[in-house]
């Protein structure tokens, strides 16, 4: 119980302080902070359309957060969720607009598999280079992000794209992921769609693999004490490659929210940095899969909240507020940690 309180206390204090600093900045540019915040809160959480938008924004962040966390459990720092999502997304979209005759029951699983495989390939390359040549995964994944972006741009601009646009043709209608408003009438007008269910499923599978299987046990051992893993004769290279592969695959699936749930085509830049925000999500959630859902929701508020106040304050201010919050939350989680240790020590 205490644990839960501590883990909520940090982010909460951070949010309050960030809002306070934000209020000062808003006043400085001559706007009324109460009014701006009012719009922001009403826009995001005050109505079902807003909540749907927030959940829509949160969905890919759950995937990228899980992706980064998975690698982290094995002691690996995957900066490459962005590139993995791009490659996975393109592979899925290609499947979607190529196999147009397949029925949905086959095509949807196929596109999801393609998304996983694309991302997994990108993760695999980084993991393989690490295992085989010892080159650091942080460098590998950053470089692969550049390659992924360039490759996608080439594929769209030169081969598959519709002229004068930056997107591909539309995917087959039978690969569409339904929007919740279409199925249930909830969150009317928002693109919040069934890929969210895939995210939840993925979270559960993540937890299951990491905490219940021998493979997950080995990954955790590797992440906490590589020398002990070696003496327990675990196959470390294989574990490194596999965990990067899975990590990349999860990030890859993160693409389906936008491609099959919203626009129905692959568009350059669709990922909007979700891979990088995933790092912050995993960090704040401390790689706990369920905390990742909550954290992603919070980041969803930030992302969509920015749009709701776009007309009142400059776009840059929204970006500043978001960055401020991320920094503060990360700092406060640390501070509360230190306090907690002090407290427990003296208790």
């Amino acid at each position, binding site marked *: 119980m205490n644990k839960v309180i501590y883990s909520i206390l940090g982010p909460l204090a951070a949010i309050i302080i960030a809002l306070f600093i934000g209020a000062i900045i808003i006043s400085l540019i001559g706007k009324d902070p109460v009014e701006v915040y009012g719009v922001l809160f009403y826009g995001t959480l005050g109505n079902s359309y807003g909540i749907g938008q927030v959940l829509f924004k949160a969905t890919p962040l759950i995937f990228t957060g899980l992706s980064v966390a998975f690698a982290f459990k094995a002691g690996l720092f995957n900066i490459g969720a962005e590139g993995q999502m791009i490659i996975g997304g393109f592979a899925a979209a290609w499947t979607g607009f190529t196999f147009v005759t397949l029925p949905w029951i086959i095509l949807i699983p196929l596109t999801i598999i393609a998304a996983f495989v694309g991302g997994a390939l990108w993760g695999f390359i980084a993991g393989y280079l690490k295992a085989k040549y010892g080159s650091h995964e942080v460098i590998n994944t950053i470089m692969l992000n550049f390659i992924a972006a360039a490759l996608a741009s080439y594929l769209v601009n030169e081969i598959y794209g519709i002229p004068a646009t930056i997107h591909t043709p539309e995917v087959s209608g039978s690969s569409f992921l339904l929007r919740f408003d279409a199925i249930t009438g909830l969150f009317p007008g928002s693109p919040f769609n069934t890929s969210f269910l895939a995210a939840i499923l993925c979270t559960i599978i993540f937890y*299951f693999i990491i905490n*219940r*299987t*021998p493979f997950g*046990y*080995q990954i*955790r*051992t590797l992440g*906490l*004490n590589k*020398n*002990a893993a*070696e*003496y*327990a*004769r*675990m*196959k470390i290279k294989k574990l490194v490659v596999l965990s990067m592969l899975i990590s990349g695959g999860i990030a890859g699936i993160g693409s389906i929210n936008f491609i099959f749930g919203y626009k129905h085509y692959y568009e350059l830049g669709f990922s909007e940095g979700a891979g990088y925000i995933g790092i912050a999500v995993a960090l704040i959630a401390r790689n706990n899969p369920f905390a990742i859902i909550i954290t992603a929701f919070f980041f969803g508020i930030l992302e969509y909240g920015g749009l709701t106040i776009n007309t009142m304050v400059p776009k840059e201010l929204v970006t500043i507020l978001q960055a401020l919050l991320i920094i503060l939350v990360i700092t406060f989680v640390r501070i509360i940690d230190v306090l907690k240790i002090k407290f427990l*020590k*003296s208790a």
Partner: protein
Amino acid sequence: MLAVEMIAITKTFAEKVIANNSISLSVKKGEVHAIVGENGAGKSTLMNILYGMYPPDKGKIQINGNEEIINSPARAIQLKIGMVHQHFMLVPPLTVLENIILGSEPEKNLLLDFKKAKERVSQITSSFKIDVNLETKIENLPVGLQQRVEILKLLYRNAEILILDEPTAVLTPQETNELFNTIDFLKSEGKTIILITHKLNEVKAISDTITVLRHGKVVGVTGTENATIESIARLMVGEDKIYEEKKANIREKKLILEVKNVTVLNENSVEAVKDVSFEINSGEILGIAGVEGNGQHELVEAISSIRKPAKGKITLNNAELKEEHNIAHIPADRHRNGIVMDFSVAENLILGREKENLFKKDITIDESKVKTFAEKLVHEYDIRPVDIDIKIKSLSGGNQQKAVVAREITKNSDLIIASHPTRGLDIKAASFVHNALIKESDKGKAVLLVSSDLAELLKLSDRIAVIYNGQINVIFDADKTNEYELGLYMTGSKVKNE
């Protein structure tokens, strides 16, 4: 004059484990004061409190007659108190010199003055006759030498009161002698030494006063000249007789492990093991005697298939050694290789065994099976406190060791490699482990025992091989040799049996 006076110190962990229960300790200036007691008796905790690692719940501390609040190691160092921990606190990728000066680096124009640092450290090493290469990285040093570095660190900080928590656990008899010479020398310089050890002959040899702890309480304080090893042991563990298993003689012998002309390279691609050959049969315990750093580490890694030999052949049950082979291995360095500090006791008890059918349910690890298994081991091996869900890092050193031993010995494997299996164990626990090893070998297992404790080797082994400079030139029948003779071969004074 009292250098240290701790009065009625009480310390409780997690509201249930009373590690120190109103302990009082008086240490005279210039004496060597031994603290002894079972695993988990509270020795390290008491010393950690003195060194400012954590505050006591109750009690007072006086240093040189003044009451002090020692709320951090930095404060302890100011008061000229230094501590070498049971588990070393060195930074592996840094060099010896860097580790020694870490935290009190001499500066020149905001830059590290390495030259000055090196001069001072060299001066200390020569005046205290401690020999170690200052440029080597810690990660490439054997434990015995790492400890030297820890002591140098204290001397570099001008410590007057030196706390050594089980310093001899990792040393060979020769190294222990050297350490004791150093301690005698420090004492003659007027320094005060507090020494924790489980080896009572050492207590007898070096200390002036003994404090005995049991279950977090002081059960005896005595001048060393008034005590015998037996009387101290009785105070430590009570009236329980320590039972000793006798080795049975195995009837049919079967070849289990064959090591043939094996050469193994170390990290720096130097031949650490050179052309070594030996065999171990079922029911046999082969001891490896040697000064730390003579290749036993690399040899053990090769036999446990962690490191590939550069030349030669290792066979297990007549099949070439493979990674998949199930080999029980109690590693020499439990923290580095034997446990995962942030795992619970139960999780640690299945380390390396997570895929065994014993714990399997479909594709998962069955938690209830793990729980049953862990609870059984915790009771059989007397791992304390009895709580399989706490993190293993909150167990005392000896109890962590018991967990490693329990896990490995109960593994279903024909070969047990035991490197310093009783390192850090109290006499009762140590003899329990001895008995367990003997029982396993009587069941027909082959045991490779690497130890720096010659008495242990002589007691358990059927044969003893001496490794010197990466080579094994002699293998004795254990009942036809003695500590003195082994010592000669271990140090290279004698090389070949003629």
